[in-house]
């Protein structure tokens, strides 16, 4: 998919860079390409259909106004002013449609590549032990299908037999194959992906037409888009503002007649269109589509817009420890020698014993020895006569025998037993150090040696979970945004607390069972909080369904993917934080443009009211309101209408990218956005209208 989508960009200011495991070269939160405006133009005209326009009450009013002025202009074809207003009113409507079309267009490109993946596949349906070839669309829930290397998987399902490597790049954009196997949490396969090796039997779990790819296509195209709760509420507010301004303009005519200054319908229509909140009305649906799109760009599929909005409201994040907060594996953090042994001596022995240990823990010991004590890994030659003892589950230790010296490292119990068997003794000092490390939440590994001095323990290696870089800052940010983080782990409370403290999460749930998770979510929700979590296993499914925002990992089971309301194709649990930010950004963009739109009206009044009445006998005082000193009545009204139309186009990139968002407290954010969009919205049109008026007045015969 990544190959066929819009040019690859990284967000310039659309948000933070991607998480630590970032999604590589995928399209990110959307730069705006002016060419899209041109390519989407036909769609924008198609949307002039009143049945489509009626969905946006504000723009529908503008369209009715445009029809009205067109009629009036036709009745008086010699009136250049009527034609100019008419043209710009139609442009206002087209610009609004254009914004929506551009937003949708970005999704369409992705949908097209997805459709390619959904080519009609032939399925090898298994009935009993007989295999028959049927079109993929004929598979029903519960059918079994066989796939071998080179086959396209015919539908969504779970692997019930076998193990295979699968190329899922069609949906994830990730080219490295993944392993899918029966049982466990990696059993789900997606229709349209390709089996690269081996043979698996799949049990179909979705009806044709409702598969994951089908839903993805619907989502990115915006076909399944429903208005979200806040969008509905905002629409109501905008509709009521439209009614207020309709009232103000309709009643103005009798007042004007009383003043002896009857207005033409064209001027009144122009005033109405300038006053009603067209800026936000035009961009509202584009903002919504672009918000969903920003998630898609980050490889997250939200099953509903409601979930995206809920993400902005989340006040508790449940994060799995492993993979989200810590790196997947424990690493050596420290060498603790027993009394009488130097650290360097211990480090040397530890390194020696780990040279052939290919586990991540073993490698981390070698790295620590090199970084902390400058011990370089010895060459093969130096140790050609060494005999390495690999780690086994039975011995629970590994080591090396070289030049009559035997070095072993391993779990405390195993090493103590080993030393004991060889007639040595383990000092109480070593035992104390082991206990201390355990108590601090770490994992102790004992290092023992047997040489001319006999068998003895040299010291302890302190293994611990390593918190990913930058996580503490992230959690601090979340705290400032008012979001509480809870770490979920299967570790014992002691270990959990140590990691929780180090990572800076607010709370933790240790020795967590799925039931515990569920209880925690319900407890938080009972207090009115919205909870977000990630999960992949079948036993996560109930909790994912219960959470307000449940992000299922694409690697997970189909039960988990069904239960959550988002799927992360990258299976990167850290992305939950980005999802929350996108949700917030969506709401902020709406609020900011609403504020901007309303604030704009002040300047338009100052342009249009003096133009209407400034020259009327007895009302000359109103010309004082013409503080912009616009050239003529016609140019003033036209300038306001043109500004009103152009500001829509000017704000399309902002609507699509979303306003700049950085985590900060509500107070600071409000101050910033009020200053930018409230105050800016007051001032900008004064400047814009003046400039447009200057240009218009240069046209001969107008100024």
């Amino acid at each position, binding site marked *: 998919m990544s190959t066929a989508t819009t040019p690859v960009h990284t967000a310039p200011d659309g948000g933070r860079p991607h998480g630590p495991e970032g999604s590589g070269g995928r399209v990110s939160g959307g730069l705006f390409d002016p060419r899209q405006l041109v390519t989407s133009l036909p769609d924008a005209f198609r949307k002039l259909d009143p049945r489509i326009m009626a969905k946006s009450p504000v723009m529908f009013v503008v369209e009715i106004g445009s029809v009205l002025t067109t009629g009036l202009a036709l009745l008086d074809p010699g009136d250049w002013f009527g034609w100019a207003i008419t043209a710009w009113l139609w442009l206002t409507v087209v610009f609004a449609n254009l914004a929506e079309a551009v937003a949708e267009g970005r999704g369409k490109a992705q949908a097209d590549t997805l459709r390619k993946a959904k080519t009609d596949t032939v399925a090898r349906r298994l009935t009993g032990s007989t295999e028959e070839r049927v079109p993929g669309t004929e598979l029903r829930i519960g059918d079994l299908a066989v796939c071998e290397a080179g086959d396209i998987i015919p539908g969504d399902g779970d692997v019930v037999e076998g193990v295979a490597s699968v190329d899922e790049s069609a949906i994830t954009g990730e080219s490295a194959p993944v392993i899918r196997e029966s049982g466990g949490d990696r059993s789900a396969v997606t229709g349209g992906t390709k089996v690269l090796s081996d043979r698996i039997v799949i049990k179909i779990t979705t009806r044709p037409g409702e598969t994951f790819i089908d839903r993805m296509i619907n989502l990115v195209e915006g076909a399944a888009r429903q208005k979200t709760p806040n969008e509905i509420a905002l629409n109501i507010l905008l509709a009521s503002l439209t009614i207020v301004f309709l009232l103000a303009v309709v009643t103005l005519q*009798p*007042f004007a007649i009383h003043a002896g200054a009857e207005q033409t319908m064209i001027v009144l229509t122009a005033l109405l269109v300038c006053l009603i909140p067209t800026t936000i009305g035009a961009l509202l649906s584009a903002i919504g589509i672009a918000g969903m799109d920003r998630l898609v760009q980050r490889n997250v599929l939200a099953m509903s817009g409601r979930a995206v909005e809920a993400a902005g409201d989340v006040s508790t994040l449940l994060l799995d420890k492993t993979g989200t907060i810590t790196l997947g594996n424990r690493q050596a953090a420290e060498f603790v020698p027993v009394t009488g042994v130097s650290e360097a001596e211990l480090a040397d022995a530890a390194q020696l014993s780990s040279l052939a240990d290919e586990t991540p823990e073993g490698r981390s010991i070698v790295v620590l020895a090199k970084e902390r004590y400058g011990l370089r890994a010895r060459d093969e030659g130096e140790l050609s006569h060494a005999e390495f003892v690999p780690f086994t589950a039975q011995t629970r230790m590994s080591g090396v025998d070289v030049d009559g010296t035997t070095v072993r490292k391993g779990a405390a119990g195993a090493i103590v037993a080993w030393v004991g068997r060889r007639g040595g003794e383990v000092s109480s000092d070593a035992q104390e150090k082991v206990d201390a490390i355990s108590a601090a939440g770490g994992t102790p590994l004992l290092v023992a040696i047997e040489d001319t001095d006999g068998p003895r323990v040299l010291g302890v290696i302190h293994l611990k979970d390593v918190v990913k870089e930058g996580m503490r800052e992230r959690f601090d940010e979340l705290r400032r945004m008012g979001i*509480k983080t809870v770490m979920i782990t299967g570790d014992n409370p002691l270990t959990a607390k140590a990691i929780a403290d180090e990572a800076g999460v607010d709370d933790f749930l240790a020795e967590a069972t799925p039931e515990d998770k569920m209880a925690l979510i319900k407890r938080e929700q009972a207090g009115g909080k919205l909870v977000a979590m990630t999960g992949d296993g079948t036993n996560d499914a109930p909790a994912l369904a219960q959470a307000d925002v449940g992000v299922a990992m694409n690697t997970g089971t189909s039960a988990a993917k069904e239960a959550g309301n988002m799927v992360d194709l990258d299976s990167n649990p850290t992305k939950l934080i980005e999802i929350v930010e996108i949700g917030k950004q969506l709401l902020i963009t709406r609020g900011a443009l609403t504020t901007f739109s309303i604030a704009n009206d002040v300047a338009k009044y100052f342009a249009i009211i003096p133009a209407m009445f400034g020259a009327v006998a*007895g009302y000359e005082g109103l010309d004082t309101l013409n503080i912009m000193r616009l050239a003529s009545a016609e140019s003033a009204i036209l300038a306001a209408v043109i500004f009103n139309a152009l500001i829509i186009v000017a704000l399309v990139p902002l609507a699509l990218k979303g306003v700049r968002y950085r985590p900060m*407290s*509500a107070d600071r954010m409000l101050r910033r956005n009020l200053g930018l969009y409230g105050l800016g919205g007051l001032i900008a049109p004064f400047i814009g209208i003046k400039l447009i008026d200057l240009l218009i007045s240069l046209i001969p015969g107008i100024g």
Partner: protein
Amino acid sequence: MSPELAGVLQLAALIGALALVYRPLGDYMAAVYSSEKHLRPEKWIYRCIGANPSSQMRWPAYLRGVLAFSLVGVLFLYLLQRVQGSLPLSLGFTAISPDQAFNTAASFVANTNWQSYSGEQSMGHVVQTAGLAVQNFVSAAVGMAVAVALVRGFARSRTGELGNFWADLVRGVVRVLLPLSVIGALVLVACGAIQNFAGIHEVGQLTGGSRQMNGGAVASQEVIKELGTNGGGYFNANSAHPFENPSGFTNLFEIFLILVIPFALTRTFGRLVGNLRQGYAILAAMGVIWLGFTALMMWTEFHHGGAALQEAGGAMEGKEQRFGVGASAIFATSTTLTSTGAVDSFHSSFTGFGGGLALLGMMLGEIAPGGVGSGLYGMLIMAIIAVFIAGLMVGRTPEYLGKKIGSREIKLAACYILITPTLVLGFTAVSMVLATPPDSILNTAGDSVNGSGAHGFSEVLYAFTSGANNNGSAFAGLNANTQWYNTTIGLAMLLGRFLPMVFVLALAGSLAEQKPVPETAGTLRTEKPLFAGLLVGAILIITGLTYFPALALGPMAEGLS
């Protein structure tokens, strides 16, 4: 002492007095509305009207109580006026005409006290005291009850129950309005306001001839006229009449009475929602608007250009010598920013901008600090709108006092803010279009080119603004005692009073059913100055945008000429 300094000192004294009673009165009212006990006289009343004051009402029941009680009030007051000729102590006045009786009944039940009659020439003691003065108490108590119901909607959760209308109504009268009125009336009487049931006296005048002087229970009606933000004067001259408002001190005292309950209710609100600072934020928004308007009003009245006006130390036409420009300006803003409508000077004679400020004050929806009760609920509705926009800008579903502002809440708040502009602009427009209503504009000399001109238009606009916002003050110069104006202003008053209450109570019911959202660092802090400022800005911009064209053709055209 210069008149300017005197005005500023009076303003300072007023603010000091209000600050002094803010806490005790606000806390006392909170206690009154949350008390479990019923006083003995209250129990008698409950027995009489057959109400169970301990039962809890959901919003439809509460609304039915409000509407039924008010309907009975309108009918009773209408009948009382229609049979006046047969009543004792009627001073020889006969029945009021049907359209004027309807207008007056609507006016007093809607807490507006628009008067198309002139008290001393048409209303006897019984109608004044048993009819009008009683409605002055109960219509104010109804407003306070609805405000308390809305506050309960914020304070309660997972219930639809908003309290008991009858208990709230009776308590408002018995425990709040009556005791304060007794104290207030004593002060007024001590300072020279009259209180008797005397007839009409013929009094000889220095310049020869004679004039009629009415007696009456003036002080007792005067005090509730201000305290309940009613505004209907015993005499046509209202608070400019020396029997109602004898001195500079009583003038200041009456302004104090107008403002004291609406401001103190913000404390009651803070108490009842369990967060005093939320109440202070609302108080701050109200206070800033009130003080700003007062300062502008004083400025424009003192410094209006023109040699004659400068010589008089400001625009003195239509103002009482004993009050002066400063106190008149404070009274004018206080009476139009609350839904009072009492006047101690004639708004029609104010400068163009001064008249515009009085108009704009009412157009804000009577919320700064507004009518008793209605000011608080009106301001809370604006707070909901402001929270909605600001809430989106901090990236969360907007919430106010722990309650989510979703589409249902926005729908109800939007309906609320649509009502008065529709009534004001709609009725004014129709009045300008029809053939005869413009004839009521008496002030046709203003502009030879355009007939009645901007000022005449302002008079009509003012009348409907005053009616629909339940203010009751008038821009003199409009003959409102015609069938058209009696009927339309009567309708504007009733619809402008009770339709908003429908939406307020529905909103209260919807809020009370919600479960509260806990506050986090991501929550918009509605008790901070930033939000209070945003609220003020939202109110001014939304009102300004709605009425800009109308204001431009009225007071602005006049003020800028």
